[in-house]
């Protein structure tokens, strides 16, 4: 007599989850669609962070050429003064400035010192960073 309304078990079970992201679940943070400033800052921070770690290993690898000998090092120096390489240096500078300045922003916001000023800090950092990058790029590409 008291047959329950249909579908009881189906409702108890956990349903499928929609996730944002361009691939499997952990990529959720990387999906740019519909995101605001804070997410972009966060995503670029992660990318530059990874880039800087990669650069660190690269740098160590390069330095190890010193162990190989003078000619290996000189070959490297020739490569290091080509335009492409210098442009990559500028890119590296961008990564350092971005990651560093955004890191300060995250530290200030994230420790509750200035909890409600994340956008203002981002633009302040952009101004400082752009000036520093311009100055640095001029020197790197222009030669001192």
């Amino acid at each position, binding site marked *: *007599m*008291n*047959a*329950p*309304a*249909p*579908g*009881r078990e*189906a*409702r108890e079970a956990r349903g499928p989850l929609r996730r944002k992201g361009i691939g499997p679940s952990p990529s959720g943070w990387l999906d740019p669609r519909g995101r605001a400033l804070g997410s972009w800052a966060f995503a670029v921070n992660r990318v530059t962070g990874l880039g800087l770690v990669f650069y660190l290993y690269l740098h160590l690898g390069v330095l190890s050429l010193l162990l190989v000998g003078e000619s290996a090092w000189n070959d490297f120096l020739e490569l290091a003064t080509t335009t492409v390489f210098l442009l990559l240096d500028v890119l590296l500078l961008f990564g350092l400035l971005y990651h560093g300045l955004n890191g300060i922003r995250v530290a200030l916001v994230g420790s509750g010192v200035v909890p409600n000023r994340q956008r203002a800090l981002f633009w302040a950092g952009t101004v400082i960073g752009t000036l520093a990058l311009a100055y640095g790029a001029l020197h790197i590409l222009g030669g001192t």
Partner: protein
Amino acid sequence: MTASGPRTPEHHVLIVGGGGTGGALAHDLTLRGVHVTLVERGELTSGTTGRHHGLLHSGARYAVHDQESAVECIEENAILRRICPGSFEENDGLFVGVTDEDMDYLEGFLKGCAECGIPTQVLKPDEALRLEPNLNPDLKVAVRVPDGTMDAMRMPLRFFATAKHGGADIRPYTEVTDLIVHDRTVSGAVVRDHVTGTEGEVRADVTVNATGPWSERIARMAGVDVPIQPSPGVLLALRGRLCNMVVNRLHKSGDGDIIVPQRALSVVGTSSWTVDDPDDLDVPEDHVQRMYDEGAKLIPAVRRAEFRAAWSAARPLIGSREGAPTGRELSRTFKTYDHRETDGVEGFVTITGGKGTTLRGMAELCANVICAKLGVEAESRTRDVVLLPHTAYYAA
């Protein structure tokens, strides 16, 4: 068969309609030990209940012309504060007189409130402005009454939560497509489960039609008629909390004569017209404009406030279509129809009418009728049982 908790599993009641009335009824019956299944085609309170402005009624609006409703309201107002603590913005309300006609209404208003047991306090304009600085500075008088604000969805949800934890089977997204009727007896309903997309049946000893303005649609499935007139009104939500107390116009019921604060919004309401189909409501622009115009007479800042939303909700008013073109003429009270008595159809009861504030009282009355039909002797305990918080509805 007397029960204050233990189940009487041989009695099963199917409630059709998950608005405030359905929820309160599920709670009342569950407390009496009756097994309840409640089906609602959409989200709980997605019909009329969720859409109202959220007034916890003092009844003062009806103290002159509909005293039956006024008394129901003030009694339930006190009960709800007791059984749903922490669920209301309990800031009281004001009835504000702005014109000479309003002043003519004052004496009858005070007398009516006194007759209905609604406490009042007359305030001079400067006193009122100290309480509510945004009021029309030209107001002539204000009368304080025990209005309040409710969250139109979450307050009823406490009834559902308590019923569910008491063992009721609450089923949103389950739509009644037909009633099961044989030999003038309703023995349940055919339902479509919108979660799985499948159909099934729910059998019950008594099926209750608690669908508000949709009452007639369900009643027809049983071959009966109920005199329900869907009567929509427009509401307007503005950003900003322009008042902390509910602000009403001191006059006989009219358009745009109430402003209910709700969180950080101000809701101005309402208007009234009649329709046949409560699913197909427009939001007439001229009604929205009237909300601005009339609301501004109470609180001038309404004019400049930022728009948030404008919508319509259909009241289920009791009374037939002829002679009630706007719906304001119909009574706001509530009724239970035992269709065995009214139509010779067994196993079917309709509860309808009423206001958001009277949900518990409506349910008590209806549950009494149902329990009498079932031979369950337990009495209602809903006046005293404190409800679970609304979040309990979502707990395991």
